[in-house]
């Protein structure tokens, strides 16, 4: 027999699960594009969690109409999420722009590879021996 499960708990579990998946992806992906996608998933989870914090299943949308409605949903989390979604799009575009720039500079979006070559560049600029032991840096300024 399936125990009775409130829909709200399922939604909460979904939101928290999305955040966990996103954070796991942020930490574990080696591909920078996947990092950006993980950021988007985390954002979706956080937004869902915020909306759910003010949600009531027996209430109506916070819009005044002619009909006499019951209780209304808390409007403050909705207003916050409304702006957060659009800002999230802007931040994702910025992150994608940075990824494109890195790809043009290094020809790779693998985190480890990019980090190694950036270390080389920094060392070459500072006149230090290259950490990776190569002869010359990847990018000449």
């Amino acid at each position: 027999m399936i125990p009775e499960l409130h829909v709200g708990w399922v939604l909460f579990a979904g939101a928290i699960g999305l955040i966990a998946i996103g954070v796991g992806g942020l930490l574990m992906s080696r591909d920078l594009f996947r990092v950006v996608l993980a950021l988007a998933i985390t954002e979706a989870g956080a937004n869902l969690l915020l909306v759910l914090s003010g949600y009531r299943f027996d209430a109506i949308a916070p819009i005044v109409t002619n009909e006499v409605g019951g209780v209304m949903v808390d409007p403050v989390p909705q207003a916050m999420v409304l702006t957060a979604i659009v800002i999230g799009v802007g931040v994702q575009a910025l992150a994608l722009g940075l990824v494109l720039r890195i790809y043009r500079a290094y020809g790779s979006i693998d985190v480890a590879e990019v980090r190694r070559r950036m270390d080389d560049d920094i060392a070459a600029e500072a006149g230090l021996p290259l950490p990776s032991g190569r002869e010359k840096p990847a990018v000449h300024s």
Partner: protein
Amino acid sequence: MRKAAALLFTLGLLFLLSVMFLRFELGQAPMRIGKDILAAAPEQVGAANIVTSVVLGYRGLDTLGEIAILFTAATATGLILSGLGGGQRRDPEGGFILRHGADLVFPFLMLVGMYIVVHGHLTPGGGFQGGVVLAAAFFLPLLARPSRAVSHSALGWIEGLAGASFIVIGLWALTLDQAFMTPWLHQGVLGELFSAGTLPLLYLALGLKVGAELASLLAHLAEVEASE
């Protein structure tokens, strides 16, 4: 080792969030301000959509900060991608159906976007949502005809004027001995199109600004992709 640490951190975060939200009573918002706003907003602000009252009335200053963040992100993306778009090589033109379909859908998308923006104080919608639809309307012809150049200066003017009018409407409240960003025009009848004071004007400015910003962001990304 690194993956194990990441997995451990993720599981810890999952546990922390679950414990926090299991203590949380469902449907009982931890904030009390929502109830007060629900009770006071229809008389104080006069907008049928109470979310709009919060976004532009009670938290207008925060919304100004949020469009500043969006502006910063759009400017930074333009700066980062400015040297990359060569512009010589473009994607091939779309086929007949795609091109004419885009032409056909464009006015309807504009109409829907403007409707959502203008009715933001009455129905679910508003400047942010409508602005995104407007940006999609401008991006669709760009996808169908990649050779057509986007006028970034025109988008910049729309964005700048919309942002400036948002701030001027907010500042004008100071001349009426009100706080910055207080809605000030006549409130009108609740639920009519011309009601809720300056909120529809603010949402119009916000919608144009968000639409222009997102359109220029998408155009920047598309230009770089095409010159690959």
